[in-house]
């Protein structure tokens, strides 16, 4: 506290300086006058009295100077001086400054970039009012399936909304799509389907118009829509009078009741339209978990209390609603609610990966720091003479240390500024290196928290690398340097030890990163090696179309339309296979329900296991390249005659009947009242949840069925066409596909135009992102580490030129001389690698959750990295060592 008061006083005195100067003059004049008076009283003549007074006082100017010294704000002025001196010193050594700044910029830039991502994804609260009170509601049914949790069904929403004691708001939402056919070209748009409580829970007001309220979701009320800002501007030019107009969505008129603000984002969704979920209590059943639940906790309610409240309501829900047609209601008995913070739900598994990355990048920063410390050390050695001179002229050790430190702080800030620019540029290319695996990616921005972080990192980095040379500035050492004529032999030995330590430490850290990158590479290769259940996905074009009821009202007529499209597509040149499916594998499009077997008594079936369903047309397996293991594919006759048939995946066949062959002819059904359906084929497993997870057992149903899940006729109006062609993915191919489809139905829009390879790539996105980032980090670490080794060896060659010359003169061969230095580099590398091995064994444990098909202690990776690192280090030391071997002894000795 005292220094603060002191600083304040000095600052104040700086401001009042002129004032004090005038005061001092007057004061001294006064003093001399009084002295003169006194002398007069003592009987001197006026002239003598004056002269004596001046004599007594001494030199007026000297007194003033010394007094000024007392109120001069020394510390501040000196600091400014240090700063000026530091900047000048850095400008005098442009190569050093450039090298150090670049190294720091890389380290700080990478750290800032990753921190920006961590901040945007993990740290920042969700962009909603009081976002901590928002929770996601999910459910698991432990008895029935061990699969991932499902969301909520509408009957639950009705029960929960009525009975709960812990939520301020509760709602459900789902994503969807629709076709706007409001004159002009039909346009496919993304929609967010919400119940009224959802928007109230997040608390975002529409910019124009009103929110959905309960009447909007009641059956029979006029259908309404809220536009997203982007869509409103794009399609309607930001027309303020839009509210109250009707637009046709999926050929049905909807009343526009509002426009969301531009800032509106719902979790990771950026929908074009927000539609109300229609809830008709008369037709609701248990089941149909197709919605995600969201709620705002009432004030003072904890998540645990909310969880207990939900557990209380599950039996109420079970009692209140009829079961889903054909499903045993006992299947819902084991339903367990799951309340999680909304943010955590959104982030998912990305947190682990990001923290691993943050740690990784911290290591890169440490290596960069060590490199700069090495540079600073060399420079300190070169400048030793200047420093010693300053010390001899009376500069205290503290003064010198401060000077070096200020210089390094300037360097740190330079590096930090350049790093910030690098980070900003790096974040710009983030989407290109696979940000698909990162949630909240749109919320990643350089904000004040990031700026503060960068500043702190820059300054603390500067303190770390700056304090190492300061540490070697002990007065004893200075004195010694002066004595040894500025050469400082014993001193430099000590510094060499520090340099060796830094170089070995860098290699150890680089080793850890290389091992981590190696493990990630193994993981990636292992994932790529798993056959996903389809072949050559890049040649499979996917497009989604929806045949609305307004267009083709009778369900029976949907299939002929779809088949007509398939025929057109099959006729296109270069198309080798074409079919369609209700949902695309690996795209997160899932539909699940329970399965009953005919050959096992119902009592032994432990509830009815819930399995994945997929609805396909004939030729689907052949088109995407799923192997037929036993039996046959569906035929068009199966579909047209609505035969009761099914195809199952190999793992489902093995689970139920041990052998794929044994499955053929067995009968299954999806509900208690449905007809039994005969298994006619068994196909290979498809890794639907990504190749790093087990392939889920799947039941394939024909795209058209009778008496399925209580519906007299079950058709797929929204299907994805799969078209195999080597031209898949090209613009021209897609436009031909569009033509072929519109030649059958001109008003149908294509959506989700992509290849199967895109879908597959997305499922690997998280892994490939981690791989790319780790590889970047590891390469930076490798380069910096190698520069470190090179620097140490090259420096020691330069230091020992004389010794080399003498040894060469005494007959040492070039090989011997070079060997000395290569050995030195390799010894350092071995020490570094040994530490690195131990470090990696500990650190890579933290990334176990990211690995697949390998272990944190993968001997192969460790061996390759260790040997590679030593090899590269040997090479890096050979370059300066060869220079040593070429030293001409005559030149050296003459030079002395």
């Amino acid at each position, binding site marked *: 506290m005292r220094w603060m008061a002191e600083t304040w006083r000095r600052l104040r005195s700086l401001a009042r300086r002129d004032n004090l100067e005038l005061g001092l003059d007057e004061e001294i004049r006064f*003093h001399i006058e009084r002295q003169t008076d006194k002398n007069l009283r003592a009987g001197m003549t006026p002239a003598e009295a004056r002269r004596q007074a001046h004599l*007594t006082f001494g030199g007026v100017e000297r007194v003033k100077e010394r007094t000024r010294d007392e109120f001069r704000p020394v510390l501040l002025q000196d600091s400014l001086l240090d700063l000026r001196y530091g900047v000048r010193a850095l400008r005098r050594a442009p190569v050093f400054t450039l090298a150090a700044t670049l190294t720091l910029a890389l380290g700080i830039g990478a750290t800032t970039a990753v921190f920006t991502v961590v901040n945007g994804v993990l740290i920042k609260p969700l962009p909603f009012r009081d976002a901590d009170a928002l929770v996601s509601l999910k459910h698991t049914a432990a008895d029935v399936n061990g699969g991932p949790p499902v969301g909520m069904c509408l009957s639950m929403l009705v029960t929960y909304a009525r009975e709960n004691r812990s939520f301020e708001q509760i709602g459900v939402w789902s994503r969807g799509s629709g076709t706007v056919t409001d004159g002009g070209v039909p346009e496919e748009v993304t929609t967010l389907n919400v119940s009224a409580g959802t928007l109230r829970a997040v608390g975002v007001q529409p910019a124009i118009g009103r929110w959905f309220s309960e009447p909007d979701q009641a059956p029979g009320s006029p259908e309404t829509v809220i536009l997203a800002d982007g869509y409103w501007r794009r399609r309607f030019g930001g027309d303020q009078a839009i509210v109250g107009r009707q637009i046709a969505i999926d050929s049905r008129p909807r009343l526009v009741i509002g426009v969301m603000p531009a800032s509106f984002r719902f979790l990771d969704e950026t929908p074009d339209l927000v539609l109300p979920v229609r809830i008709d209590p008369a037709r609701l059943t248990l089941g149909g978990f197709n919605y995600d639940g969201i709620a705002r906790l009432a004030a003072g309610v904890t998540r645990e209390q909310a969880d207990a409240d939900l557990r209380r309501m599950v039996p109420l829900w079970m009692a209140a609603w009829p079961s889903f047609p054909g499903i045993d209601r006992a299947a819902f008995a084991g339903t367990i609610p799951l309340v999680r913070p909304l943010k955590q739900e959104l982030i998912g598994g990305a947190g682990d990966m990001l923290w691993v990355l943050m740690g990784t990048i911290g290591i890169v920063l440490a290596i960069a720091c060590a490199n700069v410390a090495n540079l600073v050390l060399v420079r300190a050695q070169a400048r030793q003479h200047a420093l010693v001179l300053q010390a001899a002229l009376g500069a205290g050790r503290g003064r010198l240390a401060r000077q070096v430190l200020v210089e390094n702080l300037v360097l740190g800030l330079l590096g930090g500024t350049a790093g910030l620019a690098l980070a900003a540029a790096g974040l710009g290319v983030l989407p290109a290196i696979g940000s698909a695996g990162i949630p909240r990616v749109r919320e990643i921005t350089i904000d004040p928290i990031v700026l503060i972080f960068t500043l702190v990192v820059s300054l603390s980095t500067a303190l770390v690398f700056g304090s190492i040379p300061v540490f070697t500035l002990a007065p004893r050492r200075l004195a010694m340097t002066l004595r040894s004529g500025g050469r400082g032999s014993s001193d430099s030995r000590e510094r060499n030890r520090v340099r060796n330590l830094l170089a070995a430490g860098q290699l150890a850290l680089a080793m850890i990163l290389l091992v981590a990158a190696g493990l990630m590479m193994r993981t990636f290769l292992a994932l790529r090696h798993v056959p996903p259940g389809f072949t050559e996905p890049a040649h499979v074009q996917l497009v989604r179309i929806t045949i609305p009821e307004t267009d083709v009202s009778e369900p029976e007529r949907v299939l002929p339309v779809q088949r007509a499209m398939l025929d057109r597509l099959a006729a296109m040149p270069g198309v080798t296979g074409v079919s369609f499916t209700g949902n695309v594998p690996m795209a997160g499009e899932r539909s699940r329900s329970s399965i009953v077997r005919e050959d096992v008594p119902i009592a032994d079936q432990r509830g009815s296991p819930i399995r994945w369903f997929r609805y396909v047309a004939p030729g689907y397996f052949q088109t995407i390249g799923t192997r037929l293991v036993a039996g046959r594919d569906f035929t068009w006759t199966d579909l047209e005659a609505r035969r009761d048939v099914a195809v199952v995946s190999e793992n489902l066949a093995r689970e139920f009947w041990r052998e794929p062959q044994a499955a053929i002819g067995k009968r299954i059904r999806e509900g208690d009242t449905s007809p039994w359906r005969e298994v006619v084929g068994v196909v290979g497993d498809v890794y639907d949840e990504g190749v790093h997870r087990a392939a889920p057992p799947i039941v394939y149903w024909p795209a058209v069925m009778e008496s399925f899940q209580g519906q007299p006729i079950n058709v797929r109006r929204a299907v994805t066409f799969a078209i195999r062609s080597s031209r898949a993915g090209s613009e021209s191919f897609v436009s031909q596909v569009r033509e072929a489809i519109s030649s059958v139905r001109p008003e149908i829009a294509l959506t989700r135009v992509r290849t199967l390879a895109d879908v597959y790539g997305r499922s690997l996105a998280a892994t490939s992102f981690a791989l790319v980032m780790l590889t970047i980090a590891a390469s930076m670490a490798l380069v910096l580490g190698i520069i470190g080794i090179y620097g140490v060896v090259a420096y020691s060659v330069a230091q020992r030129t004389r010794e080399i010359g003498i040894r060469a003169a005494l007959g040492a061969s070039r090989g011997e001389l070079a060997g000395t230095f290569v050995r030195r580099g390799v010894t350092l590398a071995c020490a570094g690698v040994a530490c690195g091995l131990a470090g990696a064994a500990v650190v890579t444990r933290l990334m176990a959750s990211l690995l697949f098909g390998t272990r944190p202690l993968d001997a192969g990776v460790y061996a390759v990295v260790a040997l590679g690192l030593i090899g590269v280090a040997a090479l890096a030391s050979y370059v300066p060592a060869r220079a040593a071997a070429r030293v001409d002894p005559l030149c050296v000795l003459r030079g002395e």
Partner: protein
Amino acid sequence: MTKDRGDLLQGTLDMLVLKALQLEPMHGWGITERIEQWSEQVLQLGQGTLYPALYRLERQGFITSGWDVTENSRRARYYSLTRQGRRQLETELAQWRRASRAINKVLDASAP
């Protein structure tokens, strides 16, 4: 001038200045006179040291200054002790007494 002018021990000037100001605020000249008088003309402050000392003490917060008018209507800068200055004076006096007592004991010791 007086030949047997006492050279001040290092660091004692500040203490003497504080002591001089203990009773009442004074200007620089007054402080010189007061110390000369109290020391029975032995201690004469070199003016070259008094003013730097005053500014130093002010900067340290032990004294404050302000302009005032003297008994014969001259403007002069008056210095007065702050509370912190009073504490500092007590500390320094205690230290001085301890040290001088010790030194006296050494000097008074009879040779063995």
